[in-house]
């Protein structure tokens, strides 16, 4: 078999395995639960193991696919520097499996589009999913038995309910399937399908503790906020389909012809792979004159529309409000769904869709990312819930990725997506381990846990160092975050040099780096260093079981090493070989003429690289130093500083009042309108209907009393009376005198005879 068939087949198998696990668990355990109420211990355990086995096998297949790819493809190992793709467009395999529906020229298919990015994403997603699955075996252990939920009171007592271990793994498997579906999808319609599927999985998993009010509200919030973004995505899809006429990414072979996909239509070889709107974007009348602009506008709008979907899914400003609330779900879910994979799907889609974005759309993306990263980083400064700190840090890092993509750093953005997935899932799993030990999310109740749970503490320290991008800028060696974050800041610097007015796009990531370092180490110091603040909880804390710590160690290793250039495995090199054709050379804005997206290779120039490296290092060091001053050495008191900058502190503590703002702007008016409509419904429509009903009743009464009684009853009664009377008359001739009867017979006979004779003679 050639690699053209073996890689898609391997990935397809890896994609479908979790679906099989989901189906088996769903059919098996749900039926048992319906019959018996509580699924037996052994069956639940087996469901979990089945799920782990499926995702583990998928990981194996994905890594085989990755190595097959490495073995069969030319790639340049980070050295090719983004010249005009000497070997032509990057290699990919694309085909359709199955055509769902064809309406006119609209064709919805299930297909695949596999390139180096897909293979890499598969390896990353399945690897992290396996770690999280294994970890969840330990973390969700309580769910194997009858569970007492201390946060829910039913009539003054804690809620008792059957354990839901199997259901957790069922949803986790479905999620893995859906996520891999997004990654492998060969067209925009299929992406949208799986996009919604991960949305519903996220809904299920956030609302796992469905009895808690906060969990069900958070699940609703996540789902509804995502709907807003998906609406924009639908608009973008419609615009693209109406103008280009296809949803497929790549060229699909059809018999001996080739059906050109979105990318090759919009970036044609004859245009030197530059982005040019196709004929479909321009109506025929406009074509003659200065036709460029309307089509270009439409293309920009289509790009921004698709980006709207990514804003919702990746929790970007202004739709970032759902992600922190999503932390109501169990911690493994936060690690897998809400930090490493699902929220990265938005970034992934922007990366996958990169050839379609015009420079203006990219600018929108960059500013969205910039605002997000800054706002989220500031909120994380004051959050006290350990998972919320991490959630805001996720939002902030996703902002980094969007910013990197928006300013032309495709490789930097995607690279940060990979490294972030490793260290953020590590951080979340560590926080889960802490929560498991002390049974609280609140940082002020922890402290000094380093001695009690050393593995968790030091793996978390690795995660913190990775996220702030710790490394030695002169030697050029560091943890994974060092490489990816420096790449982003390099690109931002190179962008800012060319675009003076957009200098804020450089300031924000540098400032964000300071804040990141500060809040991460604040969290670490509060949890693990210093005297224990809650003696009781401290005494009961213990290191987690091995099933939880081994994934931590594995992920910690990856968080350190994911950026290294080891032998054939070099993520940046592989990503550079996957960079969409025509995007590596930069672009110039058409509508905003001053806008220039620099080529990514420019950011590797030594002057920029050293300057950016020093800035990033300085920022991280400053942040760590500040955190140490405040929370480790206690030179300054954090609450005093907070009271000095009281308004700012309150602003941050209440999360910039976004929830309140949305409450006032959207939720309250919606509720008010709903109440108004309910009033109209109850008073006016119901009133009208009651009135009509009363009229009908009254009319029916009249009809009943007149027509029914007189006519129908009269007819029936009359008939009966007639029969009665007739019978009474007839009875009189039944005298009972036999001789009289004989007389009648004879007389009748004679009468008949005479009548017959009369008739005969009359003839």
């Amino acid at each position, binding site marked *: 078999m050639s690699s053209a068939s073996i890689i898609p087949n391997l990935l397809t198998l890896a994609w479908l395995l979790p679906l099989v696990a989901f189906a088996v668990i769903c059919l098996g355990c749900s039926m048992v639960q319906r019959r018996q109420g509580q699924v037996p211990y052994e069956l639940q355990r087996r469901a979990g193991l089945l799920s782990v086995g499926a995702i583990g096998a998928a990981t194996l297949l994905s890594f085989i696919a990755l190595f097959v790819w490495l073995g069969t493809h030319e790639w340049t190992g980070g050295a090719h520097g983004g010249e005009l793709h000497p070997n032509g467009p990057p290699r990919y395999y694309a085909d359709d499996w199955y055509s769902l529906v064809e309406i006119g020229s609209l064709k919805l298919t299930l297909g695949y589009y596999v390139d180096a990015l897909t293979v890499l994403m598969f390896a990353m997603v399945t690897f992290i999913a396996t770690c999280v699955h294994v970890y969840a075996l330990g973390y969700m252990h309580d769910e194997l038995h009858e569970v007492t939920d201390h946060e829910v009171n039913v009539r003054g007592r804690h809620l008792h309910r059957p354990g839901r271990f199997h259901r957790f793994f069922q949803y986790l498997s479905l999620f893995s399937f859906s996520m891999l579906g997004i990654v492998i999808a060969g067209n925009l319609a299929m992406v949208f399908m799986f996009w919604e599927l991960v949305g519903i999985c996220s809904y299920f998993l956030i609302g796992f503790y469905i009895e808690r009010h906060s969990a069900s509200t958070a699940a609703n919030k996540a789902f509804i906020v995502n709907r807003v973004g998906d609406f924009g995505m639908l608009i973008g899809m419609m615009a693209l389909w109406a103008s280009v006429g296809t949803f497929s990414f790549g060229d699909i072979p059809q018999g001996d012809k080739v059906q050109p996909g979105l990318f090759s239509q919009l970036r044609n070889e004859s245009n030197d792979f530059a982005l040019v709107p196709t004929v479909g974007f321009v109506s025929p009348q406009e074509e003659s004159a200065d036709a460029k602009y309307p089509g270009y506008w439409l293309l920009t709008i289509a790009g921004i529309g698709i980006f709207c979907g990514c804003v919702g899914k990746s929790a970007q400003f202004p739709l970032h409000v759902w992600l922190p609330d999503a932390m109501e779900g169990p911690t493994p879910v936060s690690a897998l769904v809400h930090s490493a994979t699902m929220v990265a799907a938005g970034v992934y889609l922007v990366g996958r869709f990169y050839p379609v974005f015009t420079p203006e759309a990219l600018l929108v993306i960059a500013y969205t990312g910039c605002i997000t990263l800054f706002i989220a980083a500031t909120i994380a400064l004051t959050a006290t819930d350990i998972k919320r700190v991490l959630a805001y840090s996720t939002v902030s890092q996703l902002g980094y990725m969007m910013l990197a993509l928006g300013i032309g750093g495709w490789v930097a953005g995607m690279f940060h997506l990979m490294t972030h997935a490793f260290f953020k899932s590590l951080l979340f799993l560590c926080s889960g381990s802490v929560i498991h030990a002390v049974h609280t999310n609140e940082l002020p109740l922890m402290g000094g846990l380093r001695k009690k749970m050393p593995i968790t503490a030091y793996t978390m320290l690795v995660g913190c160092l990775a996220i702030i991008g710790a490394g030695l800028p002169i030697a050029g060696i560091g943890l994974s975050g060092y490489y990816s974050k420096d790449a982003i800041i390099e690109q931002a610097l190179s962008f800012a040099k060319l675009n003076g007015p957009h200098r804020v796009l450089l300031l924000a990531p540098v400032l964000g780096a300071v804040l990141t370092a500060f809040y991460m180490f604040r969290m670490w110091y509060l949890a693990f260093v210093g005297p224990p603040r809650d003696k009781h909880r401290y005494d009961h804390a213990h290191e987690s079981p091995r099933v939880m710590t081994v994934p931590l160690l594995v992920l910690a290793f990856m968080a350190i090493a994911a950026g290294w250039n080891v032998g054939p495995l070099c993520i940046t090199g592989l990503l550079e070989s996957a960079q969409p054709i025509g995007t590596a050379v930069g672009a110039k804005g058409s509508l905003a003429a001053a806008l220039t997206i620099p080529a990514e290779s420019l950011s590797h120039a030594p002057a920029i690289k050293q300057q950016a490296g020093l800035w990033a290092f300085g920022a991280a060091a400053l942040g760590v130093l500040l955190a140490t001053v405040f929370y480790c050495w206690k030179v300054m008191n954090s609450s005093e500083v907070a009271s000095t900058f009281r308004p700012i502190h309150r602003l941050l503590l209440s999360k910039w009042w976004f929830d309140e703002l949305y409450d006032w702007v959207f939720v309250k008016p919606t509720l008010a309108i709903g109440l108004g409509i309910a009033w109209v419904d109850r008073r006016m429509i119901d009133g009208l209907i009651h009135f009509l009903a009363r009229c009908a009743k009254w009319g029916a009464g009249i009809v009943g009393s007149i027509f029914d009684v007189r006519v129908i009853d009269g007819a029936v009664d009359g008939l009966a009376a007639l029969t009665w009377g007739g019978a009474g008359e007839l*009875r009189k001739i*039944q*005298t*009972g*005198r*036999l*001789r009289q009867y*004989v*007389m009648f017979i*004879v007389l009748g006979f004679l009468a008949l005879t005479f009548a017959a004779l009369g008739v005969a003679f009359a003839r």
Partner: protein
Amino acid sequence: MVVGALLFTCGVVCMATKRNLLGVLMGVELVLNGANLNFIALGSPYLRSVEGSLGLDGQLIALFVIVLAAAEAAVALAIALNFYNNFQTIDIDHAESLSG
């Protein structure tokens, strides 16, 4: 046929005038047999052409009537017995009380 007509008339008069139940029954028999005589007489080859038939139809119907008369006599006698049991008499004028 004259004999048959006489018999029939006698039977009818007997039915109309007798108060005795058995007398009435006898009248009925007379009527039936009068009718029989007429059937046989009218069925005889002297009174009509017989082409296309065996010429036995009058006699066959007479036989049917005889069987009918036997059955009727059995039922009527049973009624008479019951009547006597109930009323201790066979005077049919008492049967008025059966009227509705």
